[in-house]
């Protein structure tokens, strides 16, 4: 066996997994706190990427400024999204939440097609065609940045949920809404914060990946279904579980694609999800807001 080839596939898989994790973490957080599967998550990722395109091409923002600005705008959009659509949902409204977020997803996607057409757009950066060489292995610089940004986002979320009072409140709320209310935790404020962070993470993913992939209004669906599979495999609401499942899936896909026809790789995530649902329905790492 060619060791360099195997290592290159593992490295590729790690980066693909980290990209999945960046999208899945926000989805997992929102489910953990609100019990809502946000089907519009992919569209916020798309909006983040589209906003990056306009920030770079029309406002001439730099790479890092764009990422910061888009993440902040996405957080604000999350606040609006919560108050307009999610605040009125009760825990028993699970089906309603699915229909609502699916509807929002369709409106955003088709609204995007109406406004910007489906012409793929390219976000130019000075780093687009630069690769880092590690011996015989190579990694495009933008993917290395993605690896760093996703790791930083995970660590920030870890600190927030595990080392702060707000995080403690969030975790408490995900375990029991009634008990949390009895000790004075404001459910609405925590839910609002979770949606803001979740949507900010999808905006961050969009801004980070816009220079890597082509940008167009239907791009959200490419990742969001995989993100659903990932949060089910990792355990709904379990952020560490989602991150580990994402990396496992990225590596698995890369190895399958490297040694077998690539078309088999895409089914790997969904086969894993079916197996988990059959044999460990609570996910590999259990449910609840955990880090």
């Amino acid at each position, binding site marked *: 066996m060619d060791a360099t080839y195997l290592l290159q596939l593992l490295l590729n898989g790690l980066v693909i997994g980290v990209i999945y994790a960046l999208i899945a973490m926000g989805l997992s957080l929102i489910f953990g706190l609100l019990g809502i599967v946000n089907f519009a998550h992919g569209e916020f990722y798309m909006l983040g990427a589209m906003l990056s395109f306009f920030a770079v091409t029309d406002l001439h923002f730099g790479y890092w400024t764009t990422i910061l600005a888009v993440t902040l705008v996405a957080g604000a959009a999350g606040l609006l999204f919560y108050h307009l659509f999610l605040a009125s949902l009760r825990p028993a409204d699970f089906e309603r939440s699915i229909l609502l977020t699916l509807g929002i997803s369709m409106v955003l996607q088709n609204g995007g097609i109406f406004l910007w057409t489906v012409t793929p757009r390219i976000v130019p950066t000075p780093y687009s065609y630069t690769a880092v060489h590690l011996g015989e292995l190579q990694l495009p610089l933008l993917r290395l940045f993605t690896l760093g940004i996703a790791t930083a986002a995970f660590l920030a979320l870890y600190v927030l949920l595990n080392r702060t009072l707000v995080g403690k409140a969030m975790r408490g709320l995900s375990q029991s809404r009634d008990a949390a209310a009895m000790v004075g935790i404001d459910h609405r404020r925590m839910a609002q914060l979770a949606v803001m962070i979740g949507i900010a993470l999808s905006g961050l993913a969009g801004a980070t990946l816009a220079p890597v992939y082509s940008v167009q209004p239907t*791009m959200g669906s490419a990742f969001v279904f995989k993100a659903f599979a990932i949060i089910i495999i990792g355990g709904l609401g379990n952020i560490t579980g989602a991150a580990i499942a994402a990396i496992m899936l990225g590596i698995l896909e890369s190895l399958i694609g490297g040694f077998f026809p690539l078309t088999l790789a895409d089914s790997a995530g969904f086969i894993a999800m079916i197996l988990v649902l059959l044999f460990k329905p609570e996910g590999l790492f259990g449910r609840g807001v955990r880090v």
Partner: protein
Amino acid sequence: MKRMLIAALAAGMLAATAAAQPAPIHIGSTLPLTGNLAFFGQHSRWGTELAVAEANAAGGVLGRKVVVDYQDNQCNPAVGVSSVTRMLSDKTEVALLDGVCSSVILAIMPVVQRAGVPLVVANGSATAIADASGVGGNKWTFKVNPSDASLVEALVGWLQQNGNADGIGFLGEDTDYGRAGVQAFEHALNKRGLKLASVDYYQQGTADFTTVLTKVQRAKPKSLALYSVGADFQNLIRQYFGMGLTIPLTGRLLTDQIPPEILASGRLNGATAVQPYTAEIDLPANHAFVAAFQKMHGAPPNLLSYEAYETTRVLLDAIKRSGTADPAAIRDALVKTKLRSILGAEIEFDDHNLAHNNAVIVMVKDGKVQVVGLSKT
């Protein structure tokens, strides 16, 4: 009573006005208007819209306005069959324009045959479409754009002349389009005692190509033939150069879809491709088409828009010559088509209802796409 009389009179006048205006001619069009190939569907639609607008501005066809009913097929054969069945059940469409995706066209061919309505293919390039049409096959399907076999034959001939036909690897989408590309290359190379160095497919809608590109890099082909379209192509080409790959590219390389910074950087210099069309063709009829398209849609045409424009012209010409806008009469008129293409060749159908227009060989030199030859397919 007076009011009722006035209302009845007004209704009668309206009915009389409606009766005085001839009913429009309806044409159906099934396209991917959503999904990963929506960009291509959009350009195909724009090409048809220009041809129809020109015909209507000139007084319509047979003195009647032409109306096109565009239906989304998502590049999915099942959705295509369902949308075409629905369109044909109304019995108002006198003919259909194709569905961009070869897989959809192959799926709807039996439907149009049963309904007895002509299908004129603009964009789908799978060789199997023409193979199954005309003599001994589906007499209702006509294909205006060249098939993959004829395009690739022209390309491989060109590459061989320049000593570049050996060691070609193939990377394409896992659809009838991509598979037809492999067959066309294998056929053209086998004739010359050569074979493909590697064959890899990816699924439509793939965002990340690092795995398959790593695989290609390992196979070390001397050149790489791409069969990729839409957003997939954009992703693929960016990631190809992002990974630092330098294998010369060939195949159905969509030169009008390459990001300008890649072209300008010179990374693509030496790439040779075959296309049914490129906007750079220096012919007066093409200049007029590019200008009219740009004016109507605010963007330059690509090969999809060109193919749809030419195909719609062919269909409208056949409707005009049929004299009746009856589907069977249109089919008979299509068989006898003789129409000058904006690329100079005369569009005529062979026994398999396949037209043989010019193919364009393009090469990237000094960071620019240059037409190096027109070759009859």
